[in-house]
Every structure is written in C-alpha cells, then in structure tokens.
C-alpha cells in the first residue's frame, strides 16, 4: 500500500508521464538507446533528490526508449538498439504494405502486455527467481546463446541454411576484432587505432539495415511507401482474427522473455531474438511463410519478449544488487548515487522504494499505451513524406546515429563501406540479420566460453554439465534438421518424378 500511494502521488505521476514522453521521442533517434538516454537523465534524477520519484522517472524513460526504438525499427528499418532488431523483421515489411499504423499498434499493445505481465511476475516471483538465476553458470549462458544463434540461422536461411550460418559466423568473427575485456590485448586490428575498440554495434546495425534499405529505395522508387500510396494509414485497428492470433504469442513470449531477462547478462536482446525464433518455429507452415513479410505474430513476439525481459532484468538488480544488463547497471549507479543500496535487504529496509518501482512499471506501461496510441497516426505519417526528402533524412539519421555513438568521422566511412557490402550481400540473397545478431552476441558468447573453459580446464564442461549438453544438442538439431528435411523432400520429389 505504501508503494501504491507513493507511485500514485501527483509528482510521481508527472514523473512517469514525462519519462515516457522523453524516452519515446529520444529513443526514436537511431543511436540513442535506453542505456544512453538513462545515462543522460541520471543528473536530472539525482537533482530530484527523492529516490522513489527519481526511479519512477528513470523507469518511464526506460520503457519509453524501448518503445521509441521499435518505432524507428518499424518505420525506417533503422533499429537503434539491439533489442529492437527482431521487430524490424516484420514491422518494416508491414509498414511498407501501408500498415505502419497497425504495426505500431501491435508493437504498443504487445509492449504493454509484455511489460505488465512481466511486472506481475516480478511482484510474485522476484525473490524465488533470483536464486534460480544464480544456478545458471557461464557454460549454460554459452549454450543458451548458441541455441539462440542456431535458431536465428535456421529461420533466417529458410531453404538456404548454409548462407545464414556463414553470416552468423561472419558476425562472430567481426565481434572478435579489437581489444576484448577478457584478454586485454588487441586482436586483428592490423595496427589501426580506429579498430582498437572494435566495430560499433550501431554502425553495423545502420549499415546492415537502414543503409541498404535506403539504397534499395533509391534504386527502385516503386518500393517507396509515399510512391506506392503506402504512406496513407489505411488501417490502424487490429482485426479480431489478428488479436486472436497474437494473444497466445504475447502470453508465451511475456513469460519466456521475463525468464530470460531474469538471467544476468542475457537481457532483452536475446529474449527478443529467441521469442521471434520460437514463435516462427512453432507456427503452422502457412504462418511460417508470412514471417519476414509483415506477420503480426512476428511483431508481437519480440516486442512482448523484450519488454517482459526489461522487467525481468530488475529481478537480480532489486533482489541481489546484480545488474542483469547494461541499462540496469546504469540504474544501479543511479540507485547508489541516490543512497539506495539494492540487495536482499531492500525489500525489508525500504519497501516503499521497492514497491514504488514495481508499481511504476505498471504505470509506465499504461501511460505509454495511453500516450502512444493516439499519437500513432501522426508518427506513422513520417512514411508519407515525399521520397526526395525522406531518403536524405534517413541517410542523415543513419550517419548521425553512427557518429553520435563514437564521435569519430572514420565511423562514417566504415558505415558507408559496410553499407555497400551489405547491399551486395542482399543482392545475392544472403540474410543480414544473422550477421548482426552474431556480432551482438559474439562478445558475450566468447566471454562465457572462455570462462567455462577456464573453470573446467578445457572443453570438458560440455559433457560435465547436462544442461549445457542438452542445449548444445538442441542447437545442432536446429541447424541440421531443416537441411535434412529439405534433402528428404527433394529425394522424395525426384522419386515421384522418376515414377517410383
């Protein structure tokens, strides 16, 4: 009750509304993800003084930024943060069909449901889950990431798994360039200072998605939404059939996303990719065909999963004082600056803060939905901007996103170079998403692999830990099964043709 009255005070309600608005609008700028926005907002939060109000503001900014990131993913195929990459797989194709409003509505509702279900789970199971999360060791994290990568490769390379696997491996190779935290020595930098800290995620994301798409729009003007009449927001409402189809997806992915979010280090990115991959794999054959072409399920799955994971990542933070992701690490810094020490005693010593944060999550999601649903038709109007103005602006935001992150002009040249390579790869039907996902997970994968190798003095951890072995077997099946099925189908078809 104390948390309820704290969260519903006028000041705190204004904080959550302000936070959601700031987060949504800044989050739309590619290159500024929740982590950067929260970091920028920390001085403001500290000035407020009251820890509950400050945390409520930051939670609002967090949710707003996650939704803002999805908006740029859906409208211009420019995922500013890793956790919204999966949303662009179906969100952008749907926007190109003139259903940008519907795509944004599905994203808003799925985010709301994911966040709300996550908050309920957080309230109910936080202390118990924190102890379970600690049972996961580096070898299980490593295996979990391999499963995620295999699932992505299997779905991205429908009919051509080798290309998807190669792209994933290329992404992993790119992640090894630069000075990693594990070994503190430069690798494959060829003596270039600009490669010392490796490639930037945001540059690669822009080069893989936004830049090739902008170039495709230039090459073939009929693809442009404004040229094809897609800029009109034809239907904003979700049909009853669509609602029926996405409801179980949201339910499943909210729970799965939350559980993945609880694991320290896993976070919203893995949750969104796994959510997308799982839903695609369990869908019927006809529905599977729709994935990647504007499927409502393809938007609902990553959106509900990443929002639930955001909430889940608060479990280790609030109950153990362990930040589960970069964003919660910054929040931990803010908590400490506000004289709050998260940990097992937070719930006992300062229950008003603990419960106020949880209730502010409900509020944040609700406010986000109320604020964003009426704004969607106006946000989606961006696509109605004439092509001659829209394309230079997409290119400019692509460049800015990359520049702001590093403050280095060389980054822009790398962006153009990778953008050209990505366009050529797209000509030859190489899927680009696995490359980016491999790059995102590469560092974490290697860190966990190295830690497991050191703990078990070699690769023995694969056999010694049953959960690791089980997960790795699933990963192998995910990659091999589609090729095996295709080979069998071909053999059967050839048999029929031969009259057997």
């Amino acid at each position: 009750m104390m948390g309820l009255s704290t969260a519903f005070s006028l000041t705190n309600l204004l904080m959550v509304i302000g936070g959601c608005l700031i987060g949504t609008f800044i989050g739309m700028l590619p290159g500024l993800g929740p982590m950067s926005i929260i970091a920028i907002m920390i001085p403001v939060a500290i000035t407020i003084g009251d820890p509950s109000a400050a945390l409520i503001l930051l939670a609002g900014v967090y949710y707003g930024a996650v939704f803002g990131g999805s908006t740029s993913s859906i409208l211009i195929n420019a995922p500013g943060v890793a956790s919204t990459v999966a949303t662009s797989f179906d969100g952008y194709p749907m926007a190109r069909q003139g259903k940008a409003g519907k795509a944004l509505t599905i994203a808003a509702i799925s985010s709301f449901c994911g966040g709300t279900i996550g908050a309920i789970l957080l309230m109910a199971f936080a202390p118990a889950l924190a102890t379970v999360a600690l049972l996961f060791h580096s070898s299980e994290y490593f295996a979990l990431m391999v499963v995620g990568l295999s699932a992505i490769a299997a779905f991205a390379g429908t009919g051509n798994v080798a290309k998807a696997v190669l792209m994933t491996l290329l992404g992993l190779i790119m992640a090894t360039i630069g000075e990693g935290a594990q070994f503190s020595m430069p690798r494959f930098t060829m003596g270039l200072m600009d490669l010392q800290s490796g490639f930037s995620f945001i540059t690669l994301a822009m080069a893989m998605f936004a830049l090739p798409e902008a170039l495709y729009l230039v090459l073939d003007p009929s693809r442009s939404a404004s040229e094809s009449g897609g800029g009109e927001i034809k239907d904003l409402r979700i049909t009853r059939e669509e609602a029926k189809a996405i409801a179980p997806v949201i339910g499943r992915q909210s729970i799965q996303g939350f559980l993945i979010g609880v694991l320290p280090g896993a976070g919203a990115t893995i949750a969104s990719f796994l959510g997308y991959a799982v839903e695609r794999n369990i869908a019927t054959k006809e529905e599977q065909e729709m994935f990647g072409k504007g499927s409502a399920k393809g938007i609902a799955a990553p959106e509900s999963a990443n929002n639930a994971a955001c909430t889940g990542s608060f479990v280790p933070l609030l109950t153990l004082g362990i930040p589960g992701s970069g964003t919660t690490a910054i929040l931990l810094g803010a908590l400490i600056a506000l004289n709050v020490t998260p940990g097992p005693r937070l719930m006992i010593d300062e229950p008003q803060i603990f419960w106020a944060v949880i209730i502010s999550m409900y509020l944040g999601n609700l406010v986000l939905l109320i604020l964003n649903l009426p704004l969607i038709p106006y946000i989606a109007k961006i696509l109605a901007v004439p092509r001659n103005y829209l394309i230079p602006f997409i290119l400019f935001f692509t460049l800015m996103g990359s520049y702001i992150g590093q403050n280095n002009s060389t980054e822009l040249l790398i962006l153009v170079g990778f953008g050209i390579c990505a366009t050529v790869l797209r000509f030859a039907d190489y899927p680009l998403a696995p490359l980016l996902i491999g790059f995102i997970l590469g560092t974490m994968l290697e860190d966990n692999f190295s830690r497991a190798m050191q703990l078990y003095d070699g690769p023995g951890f694969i056999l010694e830990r049953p959960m690791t072995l089980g997960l790795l077997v699933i990963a192998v099946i995910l990659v091999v099964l589609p090729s095996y099925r295709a080979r069998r189908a071909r053999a059967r078809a050839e048999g029929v043709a031969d009259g057997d």
Partner: protein
Amino acid sequence: MALDRWIALVILMICLAYGYGAFFTMDGSLPPFMQRNPVWPSTFPKVLAVLAIATSLVIVLGLEKSTEEKVPEINYRRLGDYHLGQALMLLGLMVLYALMLRPAGFLISTSVFLIGGSFILGERKFQYMVPIALLATGIVWYLVQVVLGIFLRPMPFFMGV
C-alpha cells in the same frame, strides 16, 4: 558462377586470412603465464575460422541446394535498369559528408548534405528544400549539443568553435 558463390569465395579468402592470423601469428607474443591457461586469445577465433571456412566451402562447392526459388527484390544482372547513378552519387555524398563534418562544421555540412541529397533525387523546389534543410539541421544540432550535451562542432574549424 552465380553472385552468391563469388561472395562465398571472397568470404572464404577473408576467413583463410583470419584463420592464418589466429593459428600462426597471434600466439607468438603471448606472455608465458597466459600460455598455461586452457583458453588463449586465439582459441575462439580458431574455432570460428575452421567453422567459417567449412561453411563457405559448402556454398562455393554448391553442396547445399536451395529448396525454394526466390524472386530477387532487385535483379543485380540488370542494375542498369534501376537508378544506379543516383545511388552512387548519394554514396559519394555520404563519403563527402564524413570527410567534411569536422573541418566544415555540423551546420554547413549537414545543410549541404540534405539539400544535395534532395537535389540528386530530382527535387528542384529550392523554396522548400533550403528552409527544410536549415530548420532540420538547426533542430538536430540544438537537440544533440544543447539538450543532450553531446559535442558537435557547429562552425568551420577556422572560426574557432
């Protein structure tokens, strides 16, 4: 040979160079205490190099047959039929922007980029192009530099800001 196999061949070359680096050059300078570890900085790259070489060979040799024929969004064999000139000019403009951003300052280079981009795409209504470009540049600069506190040099280097 189809474009995808040519690309796989190029990736194979890159992976061979990467593998050479991982297997033969990285471990030479490893301090003795690190050599006793079960995992070296080259361990993971070695695994990746082997897997990537094997996978690219599968594509180069055409061992995996595609199960479905996809219609390409853009047919690279008929690139001349598309607006290739505009795409190349825009890429050139992006390179120019990257080179000019620091010396010319954010305000000038961005305005020129936005106006130039629209011009390349065929827009000739300068009465709209110029005010839109100037306004957008000013707003973005204000947001990034003043509101968010991320430094963007507004003016050319010789003006001292």
